[in-house]
């Protein structure tokens, strides 16, 4: 049944999700929401990998997805710790208020 939907449809939807994620990173100011948008981008990539893997009949793409998911989990641990450290010293998580370093 899966084969009846062409590969391009999966690729287009994951590209759209990826673009939504990147727009979120660029326009949002809350560090947590930026971080969630990055996770959205990684999930779009996972969709691409799985659909390629399925259409090529090759399993290595799906194995890669497991690694991407575990990397994303590690990323979440580090990211939330950094955001927490920021909040402790500055009482804000809005990235436009974090502007000590320039020129």
């Amino acid at each position, binding site marked *: 049944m899966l084969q009846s939907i062409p590969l391009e449809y999966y690729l287009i939807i994951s590209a759209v999700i990826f673009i939504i994620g990147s727009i979120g990173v660029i326009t949002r100011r809350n*560090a947590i929401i930026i971080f969630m948008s990055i996770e959205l981008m990684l999930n779009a990539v996972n969709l691409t990998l799985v659909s390629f893997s399925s259409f090529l009949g090759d399993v290595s793409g799906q194995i890669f997805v497991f690694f991407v998911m575990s*990397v994303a989990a590690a990323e979440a641990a580090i990211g939330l710790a*950094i955001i927490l*450290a920021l909040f402790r010293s500055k009482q804000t998580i809005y990235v436009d208020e*974090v502007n000590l*370093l320039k020129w």
Partner: protein
Amino acid sequence: MSMEIIYGMPLFLIAALSVIVLLVDAFTGKNKAVAYYFSIISLLAVAVSAAISLNTNIPKSGFDTTITGNNITFGGYAAFFDIIFSLAGVMTIFASKPYMKREFKEYKEYYSLVMFAVAGMIMVSHANSMLMLFIGIELMSFSFYVLAGFIRTRITAVESSLKYFLLGSFASGFLVYGIAMIYGATGSMILPDILNKITTGNFDITYLKVGFALMLVGLAFKAAAFPFHQWAPDVYHGAPTVSTGFMSTAGKAAALIAFVIVAKSVLPVNISVESVTSGSLELSKFTDSARMVIAVISAITMLIGNISALVQKNVKRMLAYSSVAHAGYLLMGIVANNQDGWAGIMFYATAYLFMQIGSFVIVGIIEQNNERMNFDDYTGLRKNHPWIAALMAIFMFSLAGIPPFAGFPGKYMLFVAAVESGYTWLTIIAVISSVISMYFYIGLVLTMYFKDNENGLIITDISSAKIPLAISFVFVFLLGILPGSLIDLAKSLF
């Protein structure tokens, strides 16, 4: 025991030892010396095990790879970079003990984080598949995010860490999307397979173009090259100076070696002439335009890095911009896209690592409480601390590319490689931007030597930071006057 275990030893050792350091740290309580010496000895052990496999010719076929599959390359350039990365880790650990004691507090986790970063870099240099490459780059970056914000009570450090983290994981998204598209184009994650499919025309050109463009974004970010360089000055300025020295040298070398590994398989050097089909014509057009894009990125990176460094008042930030410029020089080797270019990257990355770590260690010695980093603070350094001033002057001359120091033969190799592959205009821009860079490198030397200050600064605490300074000095000098042996080695390894 199969040869695979011996040749793969640097990788297995660093993976095991970096976890063991964390355990040693947990079980030794208040005793900080054990974890410190343990991590130094483990990194040296990794370097020795890499040196064993450095000069061995590993047969391409008939080599038993039951444990690692095809995911790992052995020996050759990978072993060389293992040695370099372990040395960088050792130097960083030596320099960070007095720095961290003075500026913050000595936490043993710092040493295990440095080891994790080295493990990531070693994985990158050994990568033979997209999976290893991705895992290595991510392991390295995650350790860097934490190292950048290690002084967690200092607001600039936390800010730099946050910026690095958000932009770095954004770029990782692009990198992994690029990997997915290249996988879709060729149907394989193993790099030699990808190369094989591309040279035989068994791939999809559209997916390959999109995939390479996306990977270029991700890798250019990791190397701090032009459109994606803005994070570098902020992060390198805010992070603890010893971490900056590590991130801006070893991290850059690892990003460049990842670039080489990808370019080697995705941009084939010689496309088979006997089968000139429309597909291979299109492929050679793609390869040429990709190299042109990288050339433009490289040119703008070195110009923007050097011109922005001109106006800096802060030495640490000046060095950060100069590290952006050096990413531009290193990219010239990718543009050349042949053995000479890659050997040039290898030589210059080595030379750059020693001179830049050396100068950051000196900045770290002089700095106090996040102050004393401006050009004015360096006035009269010659009078109070002639040795430190002399070393800093040597590193500055080397960064500017003045013979007889290591920067000169490195730049020469890269420039020649670019000219020989037909990119003369890029070399002209590179020469112009090195001339621009003279202004601020020599300017710092002038400040140290010819401006006097009544109450010149007094450095109290050098202790173990002497060791990285000595190592950097020896290599900067040695590679400058006797570059031949390393050049030959570099050319034979690719």
